[in-house]
Each structure stands twice: as C-alpha cells, then as structure tokens.
C-alpha cells in the first residue's frame, strides 16, 4: 500500500503485453512525451506573452485586435531570440 509503485503497476498486468504491443506502446509514449513537451512550452510562452501583451483591464473574454497580433509576434520573437542565443553559444564554443 505504501510501496512506491505507481497506480499503473497495481492495476495493469504488463506481463500480458505481446512484443508487438510493447513496441506500439513505446511509440505511443514517445508521441505523448513530445506532445506534452510542446504543451509545456505553450504554457510557458502563454505566461510570458500574456504579461507582455495583455496590459489593460479585462473588457471581454476575447483577445483584442492588438493583443492578438502582439501575442503572435511575441511567440515568434521569443523563438527568434531563443535561436539567436543558441547560435551565439555555438559561435562562442567554436572560438573556444
């Protein structure tokens, strides 16, 4: 009961998995991990861009025109910045 096994192990008999099932599951997990990584980035970008772009009071449940384009630009510029940092690090590494 207080063992560290997850709920997975308690309910599901994994020994019944065929090799084909195992392979399918492995692929499924890879896909799900990627999806979850992307969602994670979207959460963090929304957090960042909300702070930048939604500066006024809340008037309705929709994004206003300027806020919408600001948010789109915010995502693109953040990623640009991200790539710039990586590129520069690469240059620094090559220069030793």
């Amino acid at each position, binding site marked *: 009961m207080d063992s560290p096994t997850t709920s997975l192990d308690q309910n599901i*008999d994994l020994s019944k998995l065929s090799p084909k099932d195992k392979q399918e599951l492995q692929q499924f997990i890879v896909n799900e991990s990627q999806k979850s990584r992307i969602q994670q980035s979207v959460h963090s970008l929304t957090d960042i861009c909300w702070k930048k772009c939604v500066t006024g009071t809340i008037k309705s449940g929709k994004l206003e025109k300027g806020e919408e384009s600001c948010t789109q630009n915010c*995502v693109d510029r953040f990623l640009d910045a991200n790539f710039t940092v990586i590129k520069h690090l690469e240059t620094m590494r090559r220069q030793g």
Partner: protein
Amino acid sequence: MDNVSSSLGFSASSDPKTAVMNQVRQEAAMTNARQLIEKVNEHCFEKCVPKPGSSLSSGETTCFTSCMEKYMAAWNTVSRQYINRIQQESSKGAGAGGIF
C-alpha cells in the same frame, strides 16, 4: 479468457495495452489542466483583484469569467503560432524543432 486469471480482483481493462494508453492520456490531460488552472488563477487574480476585499465582488467574479476565457484564447493563439513555427523550422531542416 485471460482476464479471469488476473490475480488482482480489479483489473483495469481486459487489454493491458489500451489500459496503459488510457492511463497515460488521462494523466497527461490532468497535468495540462492543472497547469492551465494554476496560470489562469495567477494572472486573473492579478488582473481582477487588485485590492482584495472582504469577499469576491460580483464585478470581480465577472472579470474572472472573462479573464479565464481570454487566457484560454491567448493559449490557443500561442499554440497555433508555436506549432506553425515548429513546422516551418523543421521543414527548413537542421532539426531545430526540438530546441525549445
């Protein structure tokens, strides 16, 4: 035929593969929802309750409803834009998709 042989009295599903998949999906959805709620609370509290009074006023409640919808709209906009960008970058090659 083999779910009877399960020594556990409460086997989740006759097909262990589907059971694992369902559980993974469910947990991913939970994590996603939890994060969204956390962020909505954080940002909308900031926006809608600048000075906490003795109770949540009706104006504050209305603001929360709008703010929540608005945050989700922002989330969707970001998601669309981000995914577009990833697709663009990965079609350019160089495998830049996995950086952020």
